[in-house]
Structures are given as structure tokens and as C-alpha cells.
């Protein structure tokens, strides 16, 4: 269901949180969707790398406990892209709702 929208989900999440790391993103999506959406790690990191390559994300690495952790943050362009992608997805959902629940006009 979310396959084509993974980039949008990541951008939207990062627009609401200052910075997040990979594992945190998977858990947040699970929590917000009440367990209905489960992002596969094998899909998450390619998406994060792709978004970073396009200049929508930047990375900050911090030492946490005894290891290094990469945090992803939105860039200026990433912020703009997040707005565009979210609007596109909302429009798509609205269109789908029109198709699935048509309001008949009996005039």
C-alpha cells in the first residue's frame, strides 16, 4: 500500500521531527499507523539514500552510547518537496475517495 509513497512518508515524518534515525522512522510509522504499515528495512535505507542523493536530506552523525548514529534531517529543498509530495498524496486520496464513495445525484 505504501510502496510508492515511502518517500512521502519519510519526508512528512521528518518535517514534523527535527531529525530521526533509520530505526526510529520504522518504529514511528508503525506507531502512527497502529501497526498497519510496517516499513521493511530493505526498502527504508535505499529510500533514505535516494532522498539524500537528491539533496532533500542531510545527515548528522552523533556518538550514542558506544556507537555512531546517523540522523537524517530535511534540507531547505527537502522541506519544499515534503509540502509538494504531501499535497499530491492528499489529492490522490481525495480522488480515490470520490471513486470509491461516489455521491449519486438524483436530479
Amino acid at each position: 500500500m505504501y510502496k510508492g509513497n515511502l518517500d512521502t512518508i519519510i519526508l512528512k515524518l521528518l518535517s514534523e521531527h527535527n531529525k530521526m534515525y533509520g530505526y526510529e522512522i520504522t518504529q514511528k510509522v508503525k506507531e502512527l499507523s497502529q501497526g498497519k504499515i510496517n516499513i521493511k528495512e530493505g526498502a527504508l535505507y535505499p529510500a533514505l539514500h535516494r532522498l539524500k542523493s537528491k539533496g532533500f536530506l542531510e545527515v548528522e552523525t552523533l556518538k550514542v552510547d558506544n556507537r555512531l548514529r546517523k540522523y537524517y534531517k530535511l534540507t531547505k529543498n527537502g522541506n519544499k518537496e515534503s509540502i509538494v509530495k504531501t499535497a499530491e498524496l492528499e489529492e490522490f486520496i481525495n480522488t480515490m475517495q470520490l471513486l470509491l464513495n461516489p455521491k449519486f445525484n438524483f436530479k
Partner: protein
Amino acid sequence: MRKVNQQEIERLYQFTRQHYVEYYDLQTELVDHLATGIEENWKENPELDFEKNLQKEFSKFGVFGFMETIESHQKVMNKKYWKILWRESFQSLIKPRTFLSFILIFGLCYSLSLNEIGFEILRIGFFILAIVGIIFMFKQNKKMNNKKKENQKIYLLEAMITQSQSNGIILFLPFQIMLINHSDNLGNLQAILISLIISLTFLLFYITNNILPSKKDDILKEVHPERKFI
């Protein structure tokens, strides 16, 4: 709450290497992911064995394991490498010394390619240069492979710079030129084009084998600021 200790972190690095993650930058990201997952599982079941816990977390990557992640990382770094290569080429070309050398090589190639004997000289010269380039490339690859065997912390971009990754593509062009038969009457436009390709090849060869390796530490600092933690 039980935490992943230093010895277990080392085991995670080893695990990623065993699953074909060769470079330290990606290993580090995956190690943190696996370690966080393992610690989360321990919250519910503190007695869970480390290795079983690790397998449980690894299975979340799907049937292809780390492969998709490795590929995406490679693509991103390739893009980065070429971006740096073009930037450095442009910066070098606007320097008078490099620009003059570029024009001289172009002029020499152009005058040689206009007659049959000159073109033969050019072809033989390039053949020798290509062979030297290939030998150099193999040597660099061997050096990098030895470093990998010693489990040294190698970043993908570092490997690309050290192995002069673009050499393969650069050497492909001269081989194409070697295949051109001069008896087909090399026209003026063709001679200009060939000379331009050769000059650009020289420029790229100079950048990949001299400039980039000499600036390696600065480039890595720019792309991987996290190296300060190591």
C-alpha cells in the same frame, strides 16, 4: 535495560562484513540499526540470546538482506564521486598551468592526427599509456583489497578515490581511438574531435590520479564529518 556492549558491536561489524557490506560508512549505519533493534527486543525479553536476537533483526531486511541497501549506497557515492570529479576538473582547468597543458596536448594531438605517421605514433603512444594505466589500476585494487582483508575502516568514497575509479571509463576512450583506421581519411572535424577527447582524457587522468588522491583527506572530511569520532 540491557545494552549492546563493545564486544557485541564488534561482532555486528563482523556480521555486516560477512554479509558483503565492505565499507565502513554503511557498516556503521547498519550496526546502529541492528544494535537498536536488539536492545528493543531485550526490553521485552532480556534473556534472549544475542545471536538469535541478531538473526531476528537481520530477517527484517527481507530475503535480499543488505543487498538493496548496498546498491543504493553505491549509487549515491558514485554520483558524489563524479560530482567531485567534475568540480575538481573545472577548478583545475581555470588554472593557467593546467589550461596551457590542455591546449598544448590538444595542439600536439591535432597536428599528429592530420597525417598517417603521426596518427600511428599517437595510437602506439596511447596503447602504451593504456597498458600502464591498467597495470596501475590493478596495483591500486590490490592495495585496497589488502586493506579490506586487514579489516581497516575504509569508506566507499575513499576506495573510489584511491582506486581512481573512473580510470576504467577513461581508458575505454583511447581504445576506441586505436580502432579508428587512418586510411579512412581523417577529416578536420574528426581530428579536432579525437584531439579534444584525448586532451580531456589526459585532464581526467591527471585529476583522478593526482588531484583527488592529494585532496583525499579534505574530501572525506567534507563528505564524512563523522570521521572525527574514529
